[in-house]
């Protein structure tokens, strides 16, 4: 895209094509011969990383859409069936869900890089503004995608975010009705969000083409912030930038794979494993981590309209950055004052993100207000002022000079800052939940924890027995089919054993006359629920329906707190759910401790939030007989049934961890190969 290509194909067929559609020449001039500054550092590889992430999201998304049902009654179940029944469905879903977070993570680095090196300055204003548009489209797409699984956070996030538009004077209510397609968030809302979530990525792809076009017209900025002058300042895109980008991409893939295979729920919210319920609001509605700074700005302003305006301004203000910062020196490297303020700004953004995840009370509100002022002050006061009063250091004469004077800057420390910051953000999102939980559940030793964890077959079989004889009297297990008992990575039964197990159950079916009759269960049938519907379940259990247990160990969590959530990222600890479920089962006490009164019809449980649980103590010593000689104690029952419920919540966990190991070995080898290839290619360019 930088002028007519000098590309001359030698193959006659290509010559023929080139004279009619010079597409190969276009690709050649844009991605092969295109001159790229010699001094680009690794922060510049995030452009390639983002292109890859967009492609990954579109690819996985299109396949997921083939299996997804956009209906309020079926969406949650269809997502669960993707994970359980579709070939590698769990992988697709993890890639897509974690991919959204990785996409935002990369875009934030890309944006901060642009901010630091002044990539928005003349002549790259349009390039920058196109970037802000892409970012806005990404936010809309990400939000609508989060609604599609139709869990509790999906539903209530959709409610809160669509209600933001009700703050618009005069037209607010009409806009909200238009978004909902009804009188509240419901099936029409889910349908249109699905349609838009499918459309917007292609719009993003279109704007990305414009973004890359504008980039190739203006040329890439570089760490020195001086334009290339001679041939010595640049290297051809291929192989130099290509191989460097490939190395960057493969390192990023390692980071991404860590989430896909080992921490798929680290960035998510346990509440989203509870199906949407318009009648119950979760205690803390927290958006995904990448929206948290803006959510904090929204909440720190006591007036509803002003809060919404401030939140949107916080993004729109980026469009005006090229004119707010009029300093002639591009790169912050040569601006000692701007450099300090830049890092303060980064900290402000991270802290805002942390506050966005905390309940809006007390000191958090005050801190949120101060940081909101700081955020806007950076753009409206600091940058305009600095560009007038600051004396920059001399910039190098040319890029070639910059390369020669290069000194190894402390990139490691920057990486460390970013990792800690990112961890703080995501961890904050997790810890925002359930402030008023009881005591922290004691951490248990689980056979399935860690990178090579597998289910203990004996525990699964015993847990199934405990479920069948005790839990199944009140709780359903509706996402698990009898055939699953014979699946690899499960309790280890044979197909015949699973069928025999199924035939013990009576399943309701319809005969030719349309009458209901009961027949023995088949392997393809699902565990029958003990009650015909939720109302009957609630009526029989003192007004509160016993929840389905299929996803219980993923739908419950407890606050980990600082610094645990940071360590969890490295230790792969993600057994909050099993620990909690186990704790509830062993946490019953005959009577409440002195000074604590609990309502009539509830039971005291040490680990239940609020301590008053509707479920009576379900397990007693000796209640279930074990054939394998395991102790028949409450502790053993609880441990076994929790292991079993972890398997029902994630039947493909063993496959996930096994494939993860293979992918890691491959990626590490691949990244190493790319690194040495890159060194070789660049050997004479440095």
């Amino acid at each position, binding site marked *: 895209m930088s002028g007519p290509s000098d590309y001359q194909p030698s193959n006659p067929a290509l010559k023929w094509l080139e004279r009619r559609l010079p597409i190969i020449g276009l690709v050649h001039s844009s991605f092969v011969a295109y001159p790229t500054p010699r001094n680009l550092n690794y922060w510049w590889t995030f452009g390639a990383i983002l292109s890859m992430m967009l492609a990954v999201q579109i690819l996985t998304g299109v396949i997921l859409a083939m299996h997804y049902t956009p209906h309020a009654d079926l969406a949650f179940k269809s997502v669960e069936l993707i994970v359980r029944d579709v070939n590698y469905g769990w992988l697709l879903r993890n890639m897509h869900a974690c991919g959204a977070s990785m996409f935002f993570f990369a875009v934030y680095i890309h944006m901060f890089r642009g901010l630091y090196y002044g990539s928005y300055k003349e002549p790259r204003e349009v390039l920058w503004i196109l970037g802000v548009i892409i970012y806005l489209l990404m936010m809309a797409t990400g939000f609508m995608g989060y609604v599609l699984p139709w869990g509790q956070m999906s539903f*209530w996030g959709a*409610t*809160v975010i*669509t*209600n*933001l538009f009700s703050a618009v004077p005069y037209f607010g209510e009409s806009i909200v*009705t*238009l978004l*909902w*397609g*009804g*009188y*509240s*968030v*419901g099936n*029409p809302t889910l349908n*249109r969000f699905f349609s838009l979530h499918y459309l917007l990525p292609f719009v993003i792809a279109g704007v990305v083409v414009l973004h890359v076009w504008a980039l190739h017209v203006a040329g890439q900025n570089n760490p020195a912030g001086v334009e290339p002058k001679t041939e010595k300042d640049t290297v051809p895109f291929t192989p130099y930038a290509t191989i460097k980008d490939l190395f960057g991409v493969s390192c990023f893939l390692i980071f991404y794979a860590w989430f896909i295979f080992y921490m798929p729920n680290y960035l998510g919210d346990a509440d989203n494993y509870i199906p949407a319920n*318009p*009648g*119950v*609001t979760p*205690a*803390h*509605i927290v958006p995904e981590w990448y929206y948290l700074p803006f959510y904090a700005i929204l*909440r720190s302003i*006591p*007036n*509803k309209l002003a809060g919404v305006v401030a939140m949107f301004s916080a993004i729109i203000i980026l469009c005006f950055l090229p004119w707010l910062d009029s300093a002639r020196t591009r790169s912050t490297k040569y601006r000692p004052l701007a450099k300090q303020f830049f890092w303060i700004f980064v900290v402000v953004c991270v802290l805002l993100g942390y506050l966005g995840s905390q*309940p*809006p*009370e007390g000191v958090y509100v005050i801190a949120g207000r101060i940081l909101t002022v700081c955020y806007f002050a950076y753009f409206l006061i600091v940058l305009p002022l600095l560009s007038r009063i600051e004396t920059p250091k001399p910039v190098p004469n040319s890029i070639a000079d910059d390369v020669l004077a290069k000194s190894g800057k402390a990139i490691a420390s920057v990486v460390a800052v970013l990792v800690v910051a990112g961890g703080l953000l995501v961890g904050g999102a997790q810890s925002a939940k359930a402030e008023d939980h009881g005591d922290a559940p004691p951490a248990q030793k689980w056979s399935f924890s860690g990178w090579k964890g597998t289910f203990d077959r004996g525990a699964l079989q015993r847990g199934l027995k405990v479920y069948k004889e005790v839990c199944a009297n009140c709780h359903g297990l509706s996402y698990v089919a009898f055939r699953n008992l014979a699946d690899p990575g499960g309790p280890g039964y044979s197909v015949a054993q699973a069928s025999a197990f199924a035939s013990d159950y009576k399943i309701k079916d319809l005969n030719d006359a349309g009458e209901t009759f009961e027949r023995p269960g088949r392997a393809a049938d699902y565990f029958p629920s003990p009650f015909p519907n939720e109302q009957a379940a609630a009526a029989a259990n003192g007004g509160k329906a016993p929840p389905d247990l299929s996803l219980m160990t993923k739908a419950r969590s407890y606050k980990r707190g600082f610094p645990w959530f940071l360590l969890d990222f490295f230790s792969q600890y993600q057994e909050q759910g099993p620990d909690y479920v186990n704790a509830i089962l062993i946490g019953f006490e005959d009577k409440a401790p002195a000074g604590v009164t609990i309502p009539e019809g509830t039971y005291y449980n040490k680990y239940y939030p609020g301590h008053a649980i509707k479920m009576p103590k379900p397990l007693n010593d000796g209640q279930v007989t074990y054939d394998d000689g395991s102790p028949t104690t409450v502790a053993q029952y609880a441990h076994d049934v929790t292991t079993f419920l972890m398997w029902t919540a994630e039947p493909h966990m063993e496959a996930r961890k096994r494939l993860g190991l293979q992918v890691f070995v491959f990626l590490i080898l691949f990244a190493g190969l790319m690194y040495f290839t890159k060194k070789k290619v660049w050997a004479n360019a440095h």
Partner: protein
Amino acid sequence: MNPDAATIAAGAPIEVDLTPVAEGQDIKVFWRGKPIYISHRTKKQIEEAQKVPLSSLPDPQADSARVKAGHEQWLVVIGICTHLGCIPIAHEGNYDGFFCPCHGSQYDSSGRIRQGPAPANLPVPPYTFVSDTKIQIG
């Protein structure tokens, strides 16, 4: 993209029988996908709601304007927090009314905002008394 005919038809008025709701109790019914609280207020709750000086309210509205004359014991409000749309919990908070668990807004026994970030009172849906013990919402 406005609501389709089926959605509008499903939003037709509904009738609710009030006889099972004892004094001090409340029920939640769904109309147009929105939760509607119908509270049978106690004498204390009614008195509190009527006695509050209007000047002290963020969104001043007399209790008499929010209930039907002659049926002061019945409060009918849409249970959607006017801040960001969560569902407040009945019989919680410091004002004998509703408490929103999301961002801490508190409403009194007349459903009026008393404390927290919500800008307005809980809206009263259109309803009429068909008889002394039955209302029609919508």
